[in-house]
């Protein structure tokens, strides 16, 4: 096996390495902060306090986390099947259309009644948008990376067309649907938990967060505890072995992309039914691309994804606080920091591996002894 010398203890592999990567990213970002002559320590303090220090700040962090969990899981499920789904942006947009159709159709009905339908619509529409690239990959071998990029653009075009010409709110200058009634709109945790004495302020975190956590558990069960998950991982890791085992890789490609698209779709429930209360043109707002980094950093494991999504949530919310407090640090600065995290924790994720291997790799003789034993 070519991997003979590449064995890191799981703790190093799953904890030390990502942490070192993230630290590097922050050091690089710190340099950018220094370059515009701000104090990086101060900046980190503001970000942490802003993202975690107040209930409302935490609420915003968790709201972002919700979206990133959905897209991260989505990318991860596809990744387990050996596919690179970079289409969550488009899948979320189309899912948004689905959620809008359902919620508008039932507008006025209580939210808890509408929610199951909205969730179903989100998943079905998201999955449907993922289906065509999946089918093309499975049956015609077209490269899913390119097709999903194309489908992102197509979704953006479609949603604007619909909002301007078909679903748009009368009398509004903006391409958006009308606002859902309060009864139908998902209440925020801030509202729901107030009677219990928990004050999350007006932060947008809402029951979709629980759906996200449930999705983490569901994906974990799916991937590691169901036959289907076993088939997905087998087909994704070793297609030849999959065929030997009677698993049809084409079928797995399609199924896993449908699941992937469905997971992304849930983001639309968060945005359309809860936070915005209406459909806007940009549903995912970049969460699709962040999801790629989240999945990679989280090693495609739901727990890792939840943590990575939380990290990016902190980055987003802390970043907003940062621009409130230090006007010199603009929203673009935040984009730069995100880029650095994606670069160092994602693309350059293996940079420290050789070094850590030298430090942590088990001594060869020990392994040999174990085998002999």
């Amino acid at each position, binding site marked *: 096996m070519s991997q003979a010398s590449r064995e890191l203890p799981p703790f190093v592999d799953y904890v030390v390495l990502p942490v070192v990567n993230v630290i590097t990213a922050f050091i690089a970002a710190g340099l950018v902060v220094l370059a515009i002559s701000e104090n990086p320590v101060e900046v980190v303090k503001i970000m942490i306090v802003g993202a975690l220090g107040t209930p409302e700040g935490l609420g915003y962090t968790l709201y972002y986390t919700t979206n990133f969990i959905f897209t991260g899981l989505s990318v991860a499920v596809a990744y387990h099947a050996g596919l690179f789904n970079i289409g969550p942006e488009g899948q979320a947009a189309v899912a948004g259309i689905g959620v809008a159709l359902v919620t508008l159709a039932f507008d006025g009905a209580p939210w808890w009644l509408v929610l199951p339908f909205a969730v179903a619509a989100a998943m079905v529409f998201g999955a449907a948008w993922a289906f065509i690239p999946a089918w093309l990959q499975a049956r015609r071998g077209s490269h899913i990376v390119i097709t999903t990029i194309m489908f992102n*653009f197509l979704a953006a075009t479609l949603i604007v067309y619909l909002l301007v010409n078909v679903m748009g709110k009368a009398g*509004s200058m*903006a391409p958006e649907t009308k606002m859902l009634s309060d009864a139908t709109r998902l209440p925020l945790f801030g509202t729901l938990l107030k009677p219990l004495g928990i004050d999350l302020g007006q932060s947008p975190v809402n029951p979709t967060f629980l759906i996200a956590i449930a999705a983490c558990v569901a994906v974990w069960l799916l991937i590691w505890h169901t036959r289907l998950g076993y088939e997905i991982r087998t087909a994704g890791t070793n297609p030849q072995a999959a065929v030997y085992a009677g698993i049809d890789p084409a079928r797995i490609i399609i199924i896993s992309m449908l699941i992937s698209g469905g997971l992304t779709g849930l983001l639309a429930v968060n945005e359309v039914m809860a936070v915005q209360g209406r459909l806007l043109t940009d549903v995912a707002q970049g969460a699709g691309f962040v999801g790629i980094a989240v999945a990679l950093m989280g090693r495609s494991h739901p727990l890792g994804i939840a943590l990575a999504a939380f990290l990016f949530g902190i980055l987003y919310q802390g970043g907003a606080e940062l621009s409130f407090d230090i006007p010199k640090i603009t929203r673009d600065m935040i984009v730069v920091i995100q880029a650095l995290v994606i670069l160092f924790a994602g693309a350059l994720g293996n940079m420290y591996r050789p070094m850590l291997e030298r430090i942590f790799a088990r001594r060869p003789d020990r392994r040999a002894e174990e085998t002999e034993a």
Partner: protein
Amino acid sequence: DAQPALLYDVGGKFDKSFNEAAYRGMEKFKAETKIDYREFEIQNDAQREQALRNFAKKGNSPIIAIGFSQAAAVEKVAKEFPDQKFAIVDMVVDLPNVRSIVFKEEEGSFLVGLIAAKASKTGKVGFVGGMDIPLIRKFACGYVQGVKATDPKITVFQNMVGTTGAAWTDPVKGGELTISQIEQGADVVYAAAGASGLGVLQKAAEKGKLGIGVDSNQNHLYPGKVLTSMMKRVDVAVYKAAMDVKDGKWTGGINVLGLKDGGVDWALDDNNKSLITPEIKAAADQAKADIISGKIQVHDYMADKTCPF
């Protein structure tokens, strides 16, 4: 006592358009009163409410939100803070503590349409919009009416830059659309396309034709090549909102700013005075007076979402 705060739309502070106009109005206020203000550029939709609430909590007043997309957030936050003063530009939020500032873009557009028609030698003029959304159709409709009112035989070419957010930041495409219109014979092109409009004015200038700027006075961008600009005085409205709070004269309700109130107008300065003949100026002034007096009715696209011209 005024402690203004300003919330820009996604286009960002320096969009050479209405966000920037708002910024200039606030800067003027700051220069005159020595009162500083706070500001925020949103990065995603969820931040609208967050920023407004943040301002409100810190006691800012008035809190001015720029752009139609802010309506829902303003409505929500203004309800939460009924004692604080809010203002929104380009949209109506019906609350006692909100001043809704909307402009009759169609009136200003009518005038620049008239000027375009007068200045055109080919009998063909153009319009380049950013994204195909109702607001831009409103601009276009007023413009077409102005042109047709001057000379019904004049052709108006209309194009939109794109269908996604990128439509506002694509000067190259804006420029190409302009060239396409010029090649079809247009010699005056009106841009209502955010930063994409820069490409429109530039190509018009390059091809020796005339552009018409929008929102701010853009005449200086290509002196002698920009026929005029349809000014939407967001700066004045913002300045006024802040001043009113400071002077204790603030009122809520809907402020519809048209030609009459100086909310919209056409720009005449050193950069374009050689282009505006006395005859054009006279016609424009006359039309302006007629609109103010109600003699000329300019159609508002938003009224029925159609443009009958």
